[in-house]
């Protein structure tokens, strides 16, 4: 990732109408003394207008009825699969939790849950971390969020990750500080003596690569 200079930021903020009136006036006033900037701004504006004119915001979906009906069919199938899974889970756990059917134990469990909920609500209002949404690119993985009252922690469980082979050596860093150079899309990690531990550089796909 490279950082445009402040001047480049100004140029696109002007183009995208993200400047205040004052900023805009000041920016346009520079054109008098900087014809190159004026030409660049005009060229960018021309490009922006052509893009807006050419790129459609909507494209009709080919075979639109089939598109919808297939979504409905997949939803119906998912409902069936979920129901079957729930039934199987219930069958396998019911025998283990028979004792919960005892009336006094069920009451005690409900009371315990209420207390846990109360504690969590109170701690949440006093500033606990929260996960608002999660997404896992790999469909075979799931992210589960647990707000753990007892540990006063928010937990993100990543299920379905492939294990790391036992023979692989997982090497840790003790990073004292890091310096980022956005112009060449690198972050350099230093230890407490100022020695370089590694450099994180982004490749063309935006993926991090560890150098060293």
């Amino acid at each position: 990732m490279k950082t445009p200079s402040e001047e480049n930021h100004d140029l696109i903020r002007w183009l995208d109408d993200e400047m205040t009136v004052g900023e805009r006036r000041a920016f346009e006033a520079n054109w008098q003394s900087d014809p190159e900037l004026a030409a660049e701004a005009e060229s960018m504006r021309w490009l922006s207008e052509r893009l807006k004119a050419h790129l459609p915001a909507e494209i009709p979906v080919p075979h639109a009825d089939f598109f919808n009906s297939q979504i409905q069919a997949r939803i119906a199938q998912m409902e069936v699969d979920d129901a079957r899974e729930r039934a199987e889970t219930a069958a396998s756990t019911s025998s283990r939790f028979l004792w919960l059917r005892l009336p006094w134990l069920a009451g005690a469990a409900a009371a315990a849950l209420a207390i846990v909920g109360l504690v969590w609500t109170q701690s949440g209002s006093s500033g606990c971390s929260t996960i608002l949404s999660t997404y896992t690119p790999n469909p075979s993985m799931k992210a589960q969020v647990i707000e753990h009252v007892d540990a006063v922690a928010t937990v993100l469980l990543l299920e379905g990750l492939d294990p790391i082979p036992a023979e692989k050596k997982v090497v840790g860093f003790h990073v004292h500080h890091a310096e980022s150079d956005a112009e060449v899309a690198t972050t350099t990690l230093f230890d407490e003596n100022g020695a370089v531990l590694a450099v994180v550089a982004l490749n063309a796909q935006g993926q991090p690569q560890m150098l060293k």
Partner: protein
Amino acid sequence: MTTTFQRQNIFCKSGLWRRLCLSCVIWHASFCLAQQPTPAVVRQPATDGKVWGALIYATTDADKLTGSAEQMPTTPQDLPARLAKVFAPYTHFEIIGQHLQDVFREYESWVVPSRDLFLKIDSKGPAEDGGMNLHLQVWREQQVVAKADAILRAGSPLFIGGPKWRGGQLLFVLELRKK
């Protein structure tokens, strides 16, 4: 270093552009590595706070610990006990790597206690009660395995249950440090 891309269209020819960028990255990295222990002087962008991240190995078997020299920090308080409550049955928790990182306001920040499992953080600005709105990405080498939007608050760490390893599990702890 100042950017000189404006109005220099020659740099934008795609092939030349890519080659130049790649050369810059490699040159820069080589320069940094060659210059150690003297760090390169780079102007740091504005920050929204600091986070501490650690990669932790959890196991039930003390004999399997790696012998890492990393010390448990004083904050988050009682970290091993809190981890044990969440990640039972594991009883031993060993820090493999740790990283104290500024969270940049305008640019991505990397929390890299290990090259195997690390985080990318984008600040989304301050939240109530001194918290910080973040977009997190959990990376395993070159794969992003999860993305999350979160509000991080000091004293309330985020525990991430990662992949299994050596009969135990790798965990990631992220905590907002008070300014």
